[in-house]
């Protein structure tokens, strides 16, 4: 299809009645039936980083600052008179609610549910505030995080200053989501969308579970595997993450997209540097936006529980060198990612679905009393494209299975939405061992008040999440979503 010229675009845009439409959508409740999309971003870098610490990996020294800014991105979608939001963020995960006790330890710190945010709680509060501000049903607000381990602040120590800094940082995160969504809604415009998929030509995320000759697995997320005497390395225990799903959004008839969403599965943590940083996802978004000036890049981590960025290790020993290595590695990986993705960004096949449907599932009612376990699935469909906000830490093989079985031509998986299940591997991984399953499977019945960090998947958790996801995607495909 030959792209329309900007002049023709202007005429056409007028014919869709965009100005009036946009203002009506901004007021909410009287949205037009044609497809309108807008995007917005907001900075969520913590204001007092030196009093805080990024979470996900332990830090041995006090935080020095913000290496590069953290961000939340939102895409507002209006079609068929319905409104929805797709959000991505540089957080480690979307926290669910306050009040759940945490388990201490360098690797399993959650994002301060004790204090996030001060006046309510995580995902539900974010959705409530966005809903109130933008007039959108809460379940149509899809949340996700890239699982960035140089983000999601916690207090560095127990001082009142640190606690105040955390409240401020978490307030900024909460406000950032609302601000990004409001900006996205304010910028709604007639749009068309197309999706594609590409396999990375160069390594970015690699499987981080190394299979040994005795059948068990060892950590392989930094400088390779340790192979105990008398054994040998077989190879990675599962697939490397190579698949990237790409959504391009452009104004009707315009050639260049104004928003690009990518979904890719991998842990983004390079190293536990004492800085806040957008990490590899930040780098790829910067590069994407440099390639398309004026566009907003959104990036989601899908099911990267067993993949990591260790192809750029080993790292240097000393902090100044590590900072440089960290920056260079983030950019190098961002560059590898972009080099494969840019040529695959759709140039044709754009569509303007006139109907938006949504589906929502929460396991809340089925969880045992006092348990903090929770699976939330939230999906919207636009024509033959679906977006699914889901738990994080599923293994790549499960994500590929879900994508292969999805009834939609293109499905965007967006993980780390505030669900609490822990690592969700295929059952065999529990027999193989290694970090993700090192405490064994979770009990069939969670003890009341068990620390948040102690929640562990059961052998069937991953498969059940996939089955539930396919159920709601199936209902959406059949037009049964609301």
């Amino acid at each position: 299809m030959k792209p329309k010229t900007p002049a023709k675009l202007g005429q056409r845009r007028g014919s869709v009645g965009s100005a009036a439409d946009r203002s009506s959508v901004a007021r909410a409740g009287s949205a037009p039936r044609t497809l309108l999309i807008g995007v917005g971003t907001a900075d969520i870098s913590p204001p007092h980083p030196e009093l805080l610490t990024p979470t996900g990996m332990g830090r041995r020294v006090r935080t020095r600052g913000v290496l590069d800014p953290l961000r939340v991105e939102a895409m507002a979608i209006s079609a068929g008179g319905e409104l929805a939001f797709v959000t991505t963020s540089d957080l480690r995960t979307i926290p669910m609610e306050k009040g759940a006790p945490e388990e201490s330890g360098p690797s399993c710190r959650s994002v301060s549910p004790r204090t996030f945010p001060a006046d309510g709680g995580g995902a539900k509060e974010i959705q409530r505030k966005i809903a109130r501000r933008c007039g959108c049903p809460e379940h149509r607000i899809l949340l996700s995080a890239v699982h960035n381990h140089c983000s999601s602040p916690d207090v560095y120590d127990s001082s009142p200053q640190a606690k105040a800094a955390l409240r401020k940082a978490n307030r900024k995160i909460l406000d950032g989501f609302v601000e990004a969504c409001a900006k996205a809604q304010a910028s709604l415009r007639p749009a068309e969308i197309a999706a594609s998929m590409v396999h990375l030509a160069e390594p970015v995320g690699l499987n981080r579970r190394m299979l040994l000759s005795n059948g068990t697995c060892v950590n392989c997320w930094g400088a390779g595997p340790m192979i105990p005497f008398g054994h040998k390395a077989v190879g990675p225990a599962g697939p490397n993450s190579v698949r990237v799903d790409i959504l391009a959004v452009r104004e009707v008839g315009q050639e260049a997209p104004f928003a690009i969403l990518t979904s890719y599965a991998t842990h983004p943590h390079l190293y536990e540097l004492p800085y806040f940083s957008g990490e590899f996802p930040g780098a790829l978004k910067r590069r994407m936006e440099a390639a398309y000036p004026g566009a907003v890049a959104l990036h989601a981590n899908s099911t990267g529980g067993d993949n990591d960025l260790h192809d750029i290790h080993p790292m240097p020993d000393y902090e100044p060198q590590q900072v440089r290595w960290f920056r260079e590695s983030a950019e190098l990986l961002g560059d590898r990612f972009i080099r494969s993705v840019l040529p695959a960004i759709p140039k044709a096949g754009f569509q303007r679905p006139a109907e938006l449907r949504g589906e929502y599932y929460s396991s809340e009612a089925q969880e045992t009393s006092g348990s903090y376990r929770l699976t939330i699935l939230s999906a919207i469909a636009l024509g033959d494209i679906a977006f699914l906000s889901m738990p994080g830490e599923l293994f790549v093989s499960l994500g590929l299975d879900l994508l292969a079985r999805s009834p939609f031509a293109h499905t965007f998986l967006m993980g780390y939405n505030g669900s609490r299940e822990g690592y969700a591997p295929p059952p065999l991984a529990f027999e193989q061992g290694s970090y993700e399953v090192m405490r064994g499977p979770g009990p069939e019945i969670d003890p009341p008040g068990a620390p948040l960090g102690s929640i562990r998947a059961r052998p069937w958790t991953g498969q059940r999440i996939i089955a539930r996801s396919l159920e709601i995607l199936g209902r959406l495909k059949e037009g049964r979503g609301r």
Partner: protein
Amino acid sequence: MDTLIAALLSEDCLEQADAARFLGEIGRREAVAPLVKYVVECRNYAKVAGIEALARLRDASACPALRRLVEWPNVPDDWYWYCHRSVRAAAAVALLTLGDETGAAYLAELADKQDDVFFAWFAPAILRLPDRPRAAKELKGRITVQTLSQGGPGTTRFTNPCTAAMVTEALGLLPPAEARPRLRDMAKSASRYVRGQAALSLLAQAAPDEDVLFVKEMAKKDLTDFVKVKASLALARAGKSGWIQSIAAACGKLRNPFDLAVALESLGAAGRREHTPVVRKRLGHSDPYVRQAAIEAMDRLGGDTKAVAKCVKDRNPRVRLSVARYLAVREGGRA
């Protein structure tokens, strides 16, 4: 040999580790200097394979480099995990193999801390050390059924199958009368890989009929092929007839490539030439690890150089290294 030595400089840490292992197995002194350079300069944890190779080569000229690695392993510090400490421990164990006590204090420090590096990852290697020097004997004495069964705060030694399997391997090296009850427990593990190791460990030393019967039940009734193969190998090693044939027969039915590779390894370990055709057939298997296992088994079975040499241009570099090892052994003889 040149191919293997050159592979120590590969960009792929698994190729490096394979090359190091093979050089250690071939056992020629010309490998010592390149291996020393590898373990000193490489910053990857997989270089533990090179440290093990130096221990196998038993050449005291490696000691200065190994002493330095005990102090400064030249790998990133993964402080909360075990790899950095493991490289140091590996060097200390290698030194003890070479009769040098320099690293013993570090190993004792790990033991004092109930560290899994001592009581899981390197427990079998420590128990296999000779009783001299004296420090080796003392360290071996610290590994008992009781100390293996404990763990530091927040231990995952037994919930994590990878450490549980190493402990199970170590239990097989302890006096059977003490280790048997614990090994019976491990044989009930939810992990097939721990159960498989338990079968081997139960019959690793002279075992009562009761244990032989127990392992026979595992070989017949376990729900997984992996355990059936391992239990059959345990029985074959214990001198029970017919079990290695059952592994050979299973090779035609195993669908999982890893299980098949384990079966081929077992045939190689049994060393009966009559199984050469079964192994040879898998030299062209689609899975590279199966091809590697087949080549290594061919070596142990006495070889078929013509068949193995056909793999010299295999598309997988690690398989090519296995071929290089096979040919190096045949061309130069094992030291």
